[in-house]
C-alpha cells in the first residue's frame, strides 16, 4: 500500500508525539515542525521506516520577527518508491543556531549544510567540514539573513565613475 500524507502523519505522531507540530499541507506537500534536537531522529525514522531515501534539499529561512526561533532549517525528503515528497523544519535561535548535522544519514547533506552555514550561519554540530562554500572565507557575516538588505537601487548619493550611476 502506498504512502499517503495521512499515514505518514499517523506514523510520525505515534513515534514522536508532541515533539512534532505545526502540521500543514501547502500545495499538497506534508509539512511539519520538529523540535530542534529531534531532526536526526525524525530523519532517520523517515528514512528507515517510511522509505524516504532521498534528500532533495536542505536550506534555511530567516524570520527576524520570531524571537528565539529566527532561523528555520528546512529539509525536503522524497520517497522514490511511493513517490511522495515531504518537508520538515527545525527552528533555532539566531544567537545559538546549533542543529545536528545530517551528513551521517545522507552524504549529500554535506555541501547543502555548508551552503546553509555559509548564508545563514547555522552551526551544524558534528559536520565533518563546516566551511564557507560559495562565499569567500574571509567574510564575517551571513548574507542571506534579513538584517543585510540589498542596496537601495534608487540611491543617488553614490558617485561611481566606472559604472556611472
Amino acid at each position: 500500500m502506498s504512502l499517503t500524507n495521512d499515514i505518514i502523519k499517523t506514523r510520525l505522531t505515534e513515534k514522536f508525539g508532541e515533539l512534532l507540530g505545526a502540521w500543514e499541507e501547502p500545495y499538497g506537500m506534508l509539512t511539519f515542525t520538529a523540535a530542534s534536537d529531534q531532526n536526526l531522529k525524525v530523519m532517520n525514522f523517515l528514512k528507515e521506516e517510511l522509505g524516504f531515501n532521498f534528500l532533495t534539499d536542505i536550506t534555511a529561512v530567516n524570520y527576524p520577527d520570531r524571537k528565539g526561533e529566527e532561523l528555520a532549517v528546512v529539509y525536503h525528503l522524497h520517497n522514490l518508491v511511493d513517490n511522495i515528497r515531504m518537508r520538515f523544519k527545525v527552528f533555532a535561535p539566531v544567537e545559538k543556531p546549533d542543529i545536528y548535522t545530517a551528513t551521517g544519514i545522507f552524504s549529500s547533506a554535506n555541501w547543502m549544510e555548508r551552503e546553509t552555514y555559509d548564508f545563514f550561519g547555522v552551526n551544524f554540530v558534528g559536520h565533518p567540514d563546516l566551511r564557507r562554500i560559495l562565499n569567500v572565507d574571509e567574510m564575517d557575516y551571513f548574507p542571506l539573513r534579513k538584517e543585510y538588505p540589498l542596496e537601495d537601487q534608487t540611491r543617488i548619493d553614490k558617485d561611481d565613475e566606472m559604472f556611472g550611476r
Partner: protein
Amino acid sequence: MHDHNNIRLPEGSIEKETTTLNLGPTHPATHGVFQNILELDGERIIKADSTVGYIHRAFEKIAERRPYYQITPLTDRLNYCSSPINNMGWHLTCEKLLDVKTPKRVDYLRIIIMELARIADHLICNSIVGVDTGAYTGFLYVMQYRELIYEIYEEVCGSRLTTNIGRIGGFERNFTNTAFQKLEKFLKEYPGVLEEFENLFTRNRIFVERTKGVGGISASRALNYGFTGPNLRAAGVDYDVRVHSPYSSYEDMDFIIPIGTTGDNYDRYQVRNAEMWESLKIIEQAYRKVQEFKGAEAEVFHADVPAYYLPEKSDVYTKMEALIYHFKIVMGETEIPPGEVYNSVEGANGELGFYLISDGGRAPYRLHFRRPCFVYYQAYPELVTGGMLSDAIVTMSSLNLIAGEMDA
C-alpha cells in the same frame, strides 16, 4: 611534507613523494570555473579537494527584492546550456503558487522548447566528453544543430543563450511559422546527425576504453549523494521528474526512461544519447498535438490570467485593461498569495527545484534553487580518487557540471 600514509611502498623502496596539482579554476580542460586541488602519486589521484563558488552571483539574495517576472532572467544564468528549462521551471513554480492553469497548447509548446533545450544540453555534454577523449570532430559536427535549436529559440523569444523565454501563464507571443519550419527541419535532419554522432563514438574503441569502468558509482551511493537526472539513471535508478511528478502535461507523452547499470562515464554517455532519442519522440508527439488545434484554439499561447500575465505591449498602448494590468504587474501591485511551494522540473542534468516562500509581497520572501549539479558535484572526489588524472577530466565533463548552476 606530504602525508604518506595512503601509499603502501614495496619493501626496501626509496621514499616516495606526492605532487599537489592545482587543476583549475581556469583550465581549458575543466570547461568552466572549477578548482580541484589534487594530490597525485605519479598520475594517480590519491586525494581530491573541490572548491566551488568562483562565479557566485547571489541570485537568491537578488531574488528577494525582484518582482516575480524579473526573476526569470536570473534563472537563465543557472544552467545556461539549457536556460529554457530553468525559465519554464520558474514559471511553473509561480503558476503553482498563483494557481494558474495553462491551456494544453501552451503546455505542448513548452514541452517542445524544453525538450529542444534538453537535446542541446545533452549534445554539448556528450560531444565534450568526446573532445576530452580526443575526438573534436563530433563536437564541431553537432554544433550546427545546436545552432538550429538556438535559431528556434530566437524565433520564439528573440534571444539565444540566456533566453528569458515565456512568461507566467504562457509565452510572450505565438510561435511564428518560421519557428515551426525550423522545428520541422530539425526533426527531419537531426535523427541522421545523432545516428552519425553515435557511430562516431558508441563503438569507438578509443572512446569505449577511455570511458568504460571510469568514474562509476553504485545506485545506492548515487542516491545517497543526491544524484538526479541522467547521472542517477546511468547508475540504474529510473527516477525522472517528468514521469514521477508530471508537469506541463508530460503525462500525455509516450516515452521511456533510459537507464544504465554501472553509472560510469560510458553509461552516462549512453543514457544521454538514449534520452536525446526520447526527446525527439516527445517533440514529435507534442508537435503533432499542437497541429491538431484548429481555429481560435490554434492561436492560444498564454493562459487567460490578466492579473499575472504581462500583456502585449501594443495592447498596453491601446487598451485600458491591459494598461492597468501592465502598470500593476510592473509596479508590483498584483495580489500575490502568501504560501510555500516546492516545485521541480527535470533539468538537463537533474532535478532542478525551486523552493519559494511568498509572504504576499511583490518579491519572494525567500527563494532557494535546488541546483542538481551543486548537489552531485560533491561526489566528484569519490569518483576520481584512485584513478588517473586524465580520467578525472573525462569524469568531470561526463557529469555535466555547469559552473553557473553550481554557484548560483
